[in-house]
């Protein structure tokens, strides 16, 4: 398909303002300013644009639920804190074309009537953040930001906030705390950020990939946008494929493309002689899908029905040479490390799970360890303060279910069935 979001991306020399405008950039501004903000929200909702940051919540619905009468000042946060393992789509967008992001933020802020927008950039993407700042300055000089943009009467200031680091800053309320200068602990679910967010004001957070679709929806309409997807999906989707494939990378494809097509056609398939063991459809905090799910459309609802989540649309592929126990351990150690430390089940539960998994992976597991894992996962998943821990244990619960025999072999044999050499000492 002809790519929409990635066609002009160039990480080495991203398009400057003039070049971007030459290929049609910033056209959506005039289209937006001609419409009422409510109309834009209606169109976005009709386009069925689902959030691409992991939750998959309808963007238009989120905007509509905030309410047009939200007291000002109102804020928009563009979430570019991409820390999910296996996900690198936002990095492409940032390094490859900062102006696309700015255009998206302007029209979205107009729809929400927000006068200040923040782009929260992952700390490790400092160079991208720097180029984003330069792009913002270019835009300000050209009158595309600041007071009364293009004579519309709409004022907008965009600030780039470079994160201090760590995964939890991607959580909506933790991100708000981080922007306020506090420790990035999540906040209670009530009151919602849409009513009491940044500094107590109505705040809307959207993933950057979600937002860059908005200008195109405005220019071409909701129906057109929906038609870009397949198998019931709407719009284009940036799929990251990594793991045991021949050509890992970023692929812009219709939302709803079947997993098999992604893995075997676009990503070049598996190595010689290997068979598919399973794959994670949406980054690390999703459940495993098995070879029987290859026909599953990579869209939010079908994947949810199959028991997993599309999340960020980042496939991580395992073949029959990967030990799923080792793989899950790698993920659990990552999550244990990234806990913010606020609530007990996540802070102390995830390292405990990682420790048991380490014992199993190195052949020192006990017979009742799997039951222990299930017991602890139940509490960690259901009694934590925010959605981080439930997401963290999802791959663990799912891998125990899907690869139960592998786990049992580790325990019974006393070593990893994939490893023919002696296992070394492992730290918890």
């Amino acid at each position, binding site marked *: 398909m002809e790519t929409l979001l990635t066609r002009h991306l160039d990480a080495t020399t991203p398009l400057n303002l003039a070049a971007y405008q030459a290929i049609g950039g910033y056209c959506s501004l005039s289209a937006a300013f001609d419409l009422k903000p409510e109309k834009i929200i209606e169109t976005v909702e009709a386009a069925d644009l689902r959030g691409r940051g992991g939750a998959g919540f309808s963007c238009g619905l989120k905007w509509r639920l905030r309410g047009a009468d939200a007291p000002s000042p109102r804020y928009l946060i563009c979430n570019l804190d991409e820390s999910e393992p296996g996900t690198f789509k936002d990095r492409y967008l940032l390094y490859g074309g900062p102006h696309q992001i700015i255009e998206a933020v302007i029209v979205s802020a107009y729809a929400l009537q927000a006068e200040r927008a923040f782009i929260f950039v992952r700390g490790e993407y400092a160079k991208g953040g720097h180029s984003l700042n330069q792009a913002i300055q270019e835009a300000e000089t050209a009158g595309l930001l600041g007071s009364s943009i293009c004579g519309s009467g709409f004022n907008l200031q965009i600030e780039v906030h470079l994160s201090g680091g760590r995964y939890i800053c991607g959580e909506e309320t933790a991100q708000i705390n981080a922007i306020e200068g506090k420790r990035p602990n999540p906040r209670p679910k009530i009151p919602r950020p849409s009513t009491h967010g940044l500094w107590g004001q109505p705040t809307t957070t959207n993933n950057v990939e979600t937002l860059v679709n908005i200008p195109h929806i405005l220019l071409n309409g909701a129906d057109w946008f929906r038609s870009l997807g397949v198998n019931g999906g709407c719009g284009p989707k940036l799929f990251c494929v990594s793991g045991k494939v021949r050509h890992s990378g970023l692929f812009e494809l219709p939302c709803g493309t079947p997993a098999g097509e992604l893995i075997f056609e676009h990503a070049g398939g598996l190595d010689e002689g290997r068979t598919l063991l399973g794959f994670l459809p949406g980054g690390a905090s999703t459940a495993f899908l098995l070879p029987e799910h290859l026909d599953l459309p990579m869209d939010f609802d079908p994947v949810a029905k199959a028991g997993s989540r599309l999340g960020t649309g980042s496939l991580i592929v395992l073949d029959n040479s990967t030990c799923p126990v080792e793989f899950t351990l790698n993920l659990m150690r990552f999550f244990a490390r990234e806990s913010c430390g606020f609530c007990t089940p996540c802070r102390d539960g995830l390292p405990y799970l990682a420790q048991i998994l380490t014992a199993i992976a190195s052949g020192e597991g006990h017979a009742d360890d799997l039951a222990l894992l299930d017991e602890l996962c139940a509490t960690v998943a259901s009694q934590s303060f925010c959605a981080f821990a439930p997401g963290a244990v999802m791959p663990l619960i799912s891998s125990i279910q899907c690869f139960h025999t592998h786990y049992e072999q580790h325990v019974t044999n006393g070593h990893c069935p994939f490893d023919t050499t002696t296992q070394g000492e492992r730290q*918890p």
Partner: protein
Amino acid sequence: MQKKRTNKPVPTLILGLCRSLWTVLRHAFVKRETVSYPEIKRPLPSRWRGRIVLTRDPDGEERCVACYLCSAVCPVDCIHLQARQNDDGRRYPETFSIDFSRCIFCGFCEEACPTLAIQLTPDFEMCERRHESLIYNKEQLLIDGQGKYPGYNFYRHAGVAISGKKIGAAETDMSPVDRDNNLP
């Protein structure tokens, strides 16, 4: 009228008497159960609840960390101590006294002690002429050995630092976290 016989015939009596005398004489040569204490002392099992001692750990330091659990559990309140900490960071009892005139040798203190310091030994030879001498102070209670439970040193398991053992050096501990660095 026939006289009722109330007494046994004399021969029967003498026979009974001789039998008794023989039984008594026989017992003069039977092996004695009685142990002629104090020349011969009966061996007692090590769990026999006698005199209380305070033991030392394998490194020669006193085990008692003055946690007050023994004095709390003692049913007759015969233990009195005062905790103190020395410059090494070890807690120890500045004073420790047991009033043996009150002690009922129940062994609760030994059960309560978390460091295996206080132990009851199979020694009961504690007679004193004066009542006050039955109040043993720490010098009289502390012994040089490890008592009945060799090999346990509480500080090897506790989290605190003492001289010769830094934080993180306990048997179940990892090295301490670097608090000045946020990196994983």
